[in-house]
């Protein structure tokens, strides 16, 4: 060990710092895992450091921060992925990209043949039939894969399963039965499509451990770290974690590994605990915080999802006339929970999809502030997909932040235009420009595994607002590439109370960088999602993307 700590100076074609005192640099000096200096070529000699010019042809931006992801993404890959869009597995291989039901079935037949244990259920995920024309998947399709093994195909929306006859039998769903959530064909027979948590839960119980109910473990966290690192992420939330002793053990073990490539910020699911126990638990966990694992966020869920018709909408409700969703927590209870955590000095991340849920959560935060005046709480509405300017103005008044689900514009925007919101309200789906115009601190997210974590893609969605059919939904809500870059770096850091440590390349902050092949601020905005990620640097340590 030398007495003098090692200084490394990274040189790049361009460094976008998001530091207002030097927005663009070419060199960044790093010591002790932190930024020591930013500037030009003079840094190479100024600190007597080692010059690392491997990124000399690349563009360095602050490491991306996924402000709403789920580390369970790392567990999904133990099951085959059958999505319409290709997706990158932890190994780096492309999976899925199946363009018809026949392709899905053909793939799963191959998977089935390779399975050794005949009793092990075959559970696939990521199925997305909204992009297919023609008939929906049926029990007969899945019986082709196996008549003796349980087969489940989970839809990417999270609200529907398709199952084979073996699962229907095991779950006790007779083909002649008629219950809510069991879809039937024109002859009145079950199609094997199960909708909603009640009947889906029963099928998951029938398939047991082989299903989608796995508990987060160290290999799963490693896989999530790889997935996120490969797309330039250096910090990710795990935004709904029960934080049981088992969960915390896995989080601590994985993040203490020297080559674990990302920082994790789990949020405690408040409803796993009574308010009293939850307050004690989060206080106890905060003491375990390290540079790579930060506790302190508290997660609440107010409603369901828009595409699942379980979100709470204000007038005029669902465009197709569907009944309003049900609250996941009663308004009175929400007020009590928000007030308790707010009063104790914690930060809440509140899931609200529908506009009525966003309005309610904002109101309850306002009441909590009235009861316990407190600055800089940064309570954040997560998703907040249908908020209009009136809701954003109130959020600004109360000092709240927002993390909008920009990826929805591409993946479900057309569904929202046709079924859930109609052509007018879809224009302000995930209204990034309005949020910024109202002065609400903004982050944007993927909600991985719901949509794949990839901040380049999330930026692309917010900048272009292009749907899966290629049209622009809400041109006035588009934001600039700089605003979008801010939303996946410093903006996200702000919502996590990490902006003093991460999100920009400034002296004293973590040396967390995403190294890109080109500059997202100067390329044609339509190509932002395609800029190759070369590497990440996390705490000064280089992780290559390949």
């Amino acid at each position: 060990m030398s007495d003098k700590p090692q200084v490394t100076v990274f040189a790049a074609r361009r460094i976008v710092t998001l530091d207002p005192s030097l927005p663009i640099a070419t060199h960044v000096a790093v010591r002790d895992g932190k930024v020591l200096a930013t500037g030009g070529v003079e840094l190479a000699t100024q600190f007597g450091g080692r010059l690392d010019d491997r990124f000399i042809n690349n563009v360095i931006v602050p490491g991306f921060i996924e402000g709403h992801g789920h580390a369970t993404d790392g567990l999904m890959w133990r099951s085959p992925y059958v999505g319409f869009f290709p997706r990158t597995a932890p190994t780096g291989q492309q999976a899925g990209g199946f363009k018809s039901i026949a392709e899905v079935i053909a793939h799963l037949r191959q998977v089935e043949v390779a399975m050794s244990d005949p009793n092990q259920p075959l559970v696939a995920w990521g199925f997305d039939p909204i992009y297919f024309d023609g008939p929906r998947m049926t029990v007969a399709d899945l019986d082709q894969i196996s008549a003796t093994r349980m087969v489940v195909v989970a839809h990417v929306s999270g609200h529907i399963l398709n199952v084979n006859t073996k699962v229907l039998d095991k779950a006790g769903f007779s083909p002649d039965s008629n219950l809510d959530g069991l879809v039937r064909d024109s002859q009145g027979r079950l199609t094997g499509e199960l909708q909603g948590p009640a009947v889906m839960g029963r099928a998951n119980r029938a398939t047991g451990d082989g299903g989608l109910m796995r508990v987060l473990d160290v290999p799963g966290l490693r896989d999530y770290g790889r997935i996120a690192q490969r797309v330039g992420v250096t910090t990710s939330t795990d935004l709904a974690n029960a934080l049981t002793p088992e969960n915390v053990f896995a989080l601590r073990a994985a993040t203490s590994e020297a080559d674990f490539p990302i920082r994790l910020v789990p949020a405690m699911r408040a409803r796993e605990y009574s308010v009293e126990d939850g307050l004690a638990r989060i206080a106890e966990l905060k003491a375990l915080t390290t540079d790579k694992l930060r506790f302190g966020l508290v997660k609440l869920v107010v409603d369901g999802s828009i595409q699942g018709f379980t979100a709470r909408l204000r007038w005029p409700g669902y465009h197709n006339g569907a009944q309003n969703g049900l609250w996941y927590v009663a308004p009175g209870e929400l007020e009590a929970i928000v007030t308790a955590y707010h009063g104790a000095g914690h930060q809440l991340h509140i899931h609200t999809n529908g506009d009525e849920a966003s309005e309610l959560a904002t109101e309850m935060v306002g009441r909590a502030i009235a009861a316990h005046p407190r600055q800089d709480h940064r309570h954040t509405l997560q998703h907040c997909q249908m908020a209009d300017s009136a809701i954003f103005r109130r959020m600004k008044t109360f000092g709240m932040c927002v993390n909008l689900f920009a990826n929805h514009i591409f993946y479900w925007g057309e569904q929202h235009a046709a079924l859930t919101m109609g052509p007018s309200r879809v224009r302000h789906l995930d209204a990034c420009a309005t949020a910024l115009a109202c002065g609400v601190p903004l982050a944007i997210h993927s909600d991985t595994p719901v949509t794949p974590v990839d901040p380049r893609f999330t930026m692309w969605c917010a900048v272009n607002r292009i749907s899966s059919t290629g049209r622009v939904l809400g041109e006035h809500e588009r934001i600039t590439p700089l605003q979008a870059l801010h939303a996946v770096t410093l903006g996200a850091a702000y919502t996590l109370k990490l902006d003093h440590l991460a999100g920009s390349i400034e002296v004293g902050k973590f040396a967390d960088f995403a190294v890109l092949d080109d500059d997202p601020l100067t390329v044609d905005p339509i190509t932002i999602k395609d800029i190759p990620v070369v590497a990440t640097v996390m705490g000064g340590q280089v992780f290559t993307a390949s």
Partner: protein
Amino acid sequence: MIPLTVIGGFLGTGKTTLVNHLLVSARKRWGVLVNDFGAINVDAALIAAQDGQTMALTNGCVCCSLGDDLGDALAAIAMRQPEHVVVEASGVSDPWKIAQLALIEPGFALEPLVVLVDTAAFLAQLDDRWIADTVARQLSFAEIIVLNKCDQASAETIAAVRARVQRLRPEAALIEAIDAALPETALSFAPGPRPVASRFHVEAIGHDFPTYALSADVPFDRDRLRAVLSDLPRSVLRIKGKCFLGAEAASVLLQYAAERWAFTAAPAGLQPALVVIGTPELPAQSDLVAQFRAATLG
């Protein structure tokens, strides 16, 4: 089959009070599944054993956490051989969604869906922009509606609540109560001895459910039986019993409740017959016999 009663109602309507009351003053061995285990409040002297999310009482009752899956919880509580199971739905859920899942539990017979109302708060709740639709939806399939907390409401309010409830769900029987003190018979379709009126029972019992049996010896045609079941009037609350389906005469247990039904494997030893339970507007037995006979094979 173990009788199973689902209890719904918005927060603060008295569901937990009702459950506590059942456990403490039990005249049967109740098995109770609750959402919030911590809210169960029984005298420590009455607790025989407590282990995680299960509490066994000295009077033979058992109380468990409902958890994530009704089927799991029912399987676990059935092992304790309760005489009657009560499921407490969460205050924001639609209890009918839970109740109909019980139709596919072959070991259980679905008793009336009981929904509690906070009589003193109900009219204001129906005007509340955020919860009005939730409260009304919870009543949509209720079979017994308990107007609870009648001691906190004026006679005028009680009359107004009755009128609103009857408009929302005309098929339900109404019971007025204080402190959620119900006769145990109010949780079953089966008529029981009328309890002695007391100060707790403002109106001790006010529900009569006409019941009769249909023979089911001849197998049904699947499609025609489905058509009959789809067209039954709302006055038919339950049909349950063993019958035979299709040319292969598969022996099945049918459980029907409010436009939803399930077939499961018939328990051994059960004689074929369908028991029909309904509101006072239930069609004449001869009409239903004719409809079901027309759906038989041969």
